[in-house]
């Protein structure tokens, strides 16, 4: 079976590793606001927050974008990719979250450009340099998944996994929780992520960018949190 495992899937694993230095360890996407208000304080409440974050925010932004971009790559429609880069940025109204995501996208892009020679990546970098594009990790991740020949649904699923595994580990530090509790959350989320991927595949393009009022507010309010361990 080991040989049946697609080597390229393993290559994409590298980008999911929480040690992959994109700076994800310094962003909580509003979770820190909930922790400070004591709304998230243990494994159960963390799972609840993550569930809403994945199902209500992530699927409609990064997740749906990843699907649309994968299709655009198949069709060679680069303009669509640049359009999504802008939409992902301008729908993200909380400044800290937007700028944090942009910074991560930029770091990830520079890093994978050293690992892979993909023309679209160089074009993306050039556009960011010219201030025509912003940079977003979901876009970089999808370009690599597509480049490696990994299936669309797998690319989306792994992207979601990379986001929640970093978030769970950040929560372990911030709440704080035991390492085991953190791993239990990640394990429990396997089903949730599969469901979320199915949801992304069935969404209408019109569903892009739907916000969750409470989550968005927590991300805006984080800008006013004085004592903090995360940048967003």
């Amino acid at each position, binding site marked *: 079976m080991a040989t049946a495992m697609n080597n390229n899937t393993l290559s994409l694993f590298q980008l999911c590793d929480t040690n992959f230095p994109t700076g994800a360890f310094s962003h909580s996407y509003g979770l820190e606001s909930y922790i400070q208000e004591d709304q998230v304080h243990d494994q159960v409440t963390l799972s609840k927050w993550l569930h809403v974050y994945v199902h209500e925010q992530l699927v409609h932004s990064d997740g749906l974008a990843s699907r649309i971009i994968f299709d655009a790559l198949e069709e060679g429609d680069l303009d669509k990719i640049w359009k999504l880069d802008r939409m992902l940025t301008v*729908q993200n109204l909380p400044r800290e979250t937007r700028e944090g995501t942009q910074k991560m996208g930029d770091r990830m892009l520079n890093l994978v450009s050293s690992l892979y020679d993909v023309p679209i990546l160089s074009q993306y970098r050039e556009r960011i340099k010219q201030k025509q594009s912003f940079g977003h990790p979901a876009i970089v991740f999808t370009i690599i998944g597509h480049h490696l020949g990994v299936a669309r649904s797998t690319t989306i699923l792994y992207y979601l996994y990379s986001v929640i595994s970093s978030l769970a580990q950040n929560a372990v530090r911030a709440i704080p929780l035991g390492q085991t509790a953190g791993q239990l959350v990640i394990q429990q989320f396997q089903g949730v992520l599969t469901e979320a991927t199915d949801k992304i595949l069935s969404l209408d393009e019109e569903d892009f960018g739907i916000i969750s009022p409470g989550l*968005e507010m927590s*991300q805006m309010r984080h800008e006013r949190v004085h004592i903090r361990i995360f940048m967003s």
Partner: protein
Amino acid sequence: MKDWTGILRLEAEERNGKTVAKNVYFQGAFKVMRPIYHDDSGQACYYILNPGGGYLDGDRYQMKIALREQARLTLTTQSATKIYKTPTNPAYQETEITLKKGSYLEYITDPLIGYARARYKQKTVVKMETGATFLYSDIITSGWSPEGAKFSYDLLQLITEIYIEDELVMYDHIKLNPTSQTMNSLGFMEGYSHLGSMVVVGEQASHELLDQLYQAIREDTTEYKVGLSFLPVAGIIIRILANSTQTIERIQTTCHHIINQHFFNTTPSFLRKY
């Protein structure tokens, strides 16, 4: 589909320091009254009326507002927008706003009230030239039902797109769907019943203004919760979660005053409605 329930076209320009209508046209269940000049600034105020009293199943409304260079306009509704039950087709409203350089539009809408089983979608597209200023506010209530149950509507969807020189600079998508979402839960309305939004886009928007707004409305109460942030372009978004229209209106009015002071050194007029 061309069969609109109500159409409104309003184009305004500046003439000798006064904003006047260049073209006004309305048809069906949309109407505007003659402009009111609240003070001697020349800024015109138009009230939009919905003679039908509410939006019904399958109703479709279209509004096009255009301001020429230097025109200054307040646009507001006469009363709350009520969406009645829509058994077959959601009610729909699309608005297109075009703002030329130096113009200023403040579009202050009354609360949106979704009745039991109502579905409503609105799309607002704002096309600005560099140097134009736009201010918008809305309030989404928990709706109305004979039993007094909150969130008995089925869908309220509000999409707002703002472009500057044809480049998308803000995209806001609110889709409240009580049939599939747990409205009170964490991440959604979090125990509050009303959601207010205010957006301002204009070159004078600064981080100092954001701080000033925050200082003026930061809460020391559980009556409401506010979130403010700076947009990808010079502009600010203010979200408010609260339990009444009045609370949100009070906060939005405070912000409106501060913004007008900061931008134009003027004070907004009280909008008389009842």
